[in-house]
């Protein structure tokens, strides 16, 4: 597989993971901030 082909294969995978990863990361960040209150 050429370098160009690998880039082509990788891009949809990255996009797909970003679509679900960004909302999940936002949710985890919200909860982590809230959890910090336990240690204050």
């Amino acid at each position: 597989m050429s370098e160009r082909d690998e880039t082509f294969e990788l891009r949809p995978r990255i996009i797909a993971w970003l679509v679900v990863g960004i909302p999940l990361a936002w949710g985890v960040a919200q909860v982590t901030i809230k959890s910090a209150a336990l240690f204050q």
Partner: protein
Amino acid sequence: MSAAGFLDRSRCIAPPGYDRWRVPPAALAIHLSIGQAYAFSVFNLPLTKILGVTAPVPEDWKLTTIGWIFSVAIVFLGLSAFTFGRWLEEAGPRKAMFASASCFGGGFLVAALGVQIHQIWLVYLGYGVLGGIGLGLGYIAPVSTLIKWFPDRPGMATGLAIMGFGGGAMIGSPLAVALMDFFKSSTSVGVAEAFVVMGILYFAFMMFGVFTVQVPGPGWLPASYTAKRKAEFGATPAVPTIGTPAGRSNAERRPMAKDVHVNEAIRTPQFWLLWVVLCLNVTAGIGVLGQASPMIQEMFPGGVSAQAAAGFVGLLSLANMAGRFVWSSASDIIGRRRTYMVYFALGALLYASVPSAGRMENATLFVAFYCVIMSMYGGGFATIPAYLRDQFGEMHVGAIHGRLLTAWSLAGVAGPVLVNYIREYQINHGVAKGDAYSATMYLMAGLLVVGFVANWLVQSVHATHHYNPERGPMRV
């Protein structure tokens, strides 16, 4: 191409060389959405003042009335998974995920109408019945698909999807709060408007999963797995044995050597032992999860503020979500049976130790114990599909998983009732609030010991139950 054609199983068969790591995001899109159900409690207080807006008036719904919305949804999750599991295997994941998105998103819209005209039965019908059906379909469809894509790491794959269900609450809760804040006015608490927006948003997000989900092509197996599989099944038909010729349903494909038909699976002791395993693991976790905030405040009076208690609940959610992926992935290495042995043995030990942590006034130890307990509660959910796959093969794993989820429905109703009843009984008999949880903890430890025995009794399914296409779907 018609819309119906696009949803057909035959239209979502992956071409040769398809990157299987593009499938988990499709599963996560569904699970992150339906996981919102765990965050439904953020609507509880606003729903008690729909008419009064600033404070409840006598005509407003009571908390006990509102509490049934979540319970109905969980019951219908189990019922729909039970009823439609077999259909899902025939129809394919794309159609099932589309039905899930329609029911879950549509359920929000019907519930919004119920809130707007203040008819609780419409909220039960919308979020409870319709939404619950969406939950059941959406829960099992991606799991069954990922098991087929990752036969070499089924625990990791299902853990990834079911982790999304745990993570869904983390998105759903702040999203709901932000939307209600945005829409609230002098005449509205903003719930109906938030329901409409969430229904549309979740439908759109789930459609990403519908569009991107793929099933493995005929005879597909990961290269690294082929040699192992040949060794496992010896002289059984040459690889590929799990191929699905394009356009043929899952039931028509050639079975694995260990495949068990769904109707046969429920006749085996293994199915019912695993049903007990899931039911007890969920019962032990779900009741306490719902009481985490008041529990830590009452066990450490004056030491833990309401804000810190909310932080504790958040930490438990993180442990629950992380446990789904970590424990389930670990089960690929140490084995499913051993993993559940750890859940039950360590869980029982920790539950029995929680009252001591309370008496020692050691909040750090208390929090640490609960984080581990909740990680195993999540792990129990995530590991069960791979356990079913080990026992019954891949052929009907979605349908069998669907039938097993009735254990969740029962535990979802029984767990909180049990915990609340014991607590009330203790308090009514003069036990201090902080000590009233001790009996509950010991009971939970006892339930986990029973679960340990049930799991210990699980042995491999006898070969007489294995599916043989020449004899038909049932053992003769």
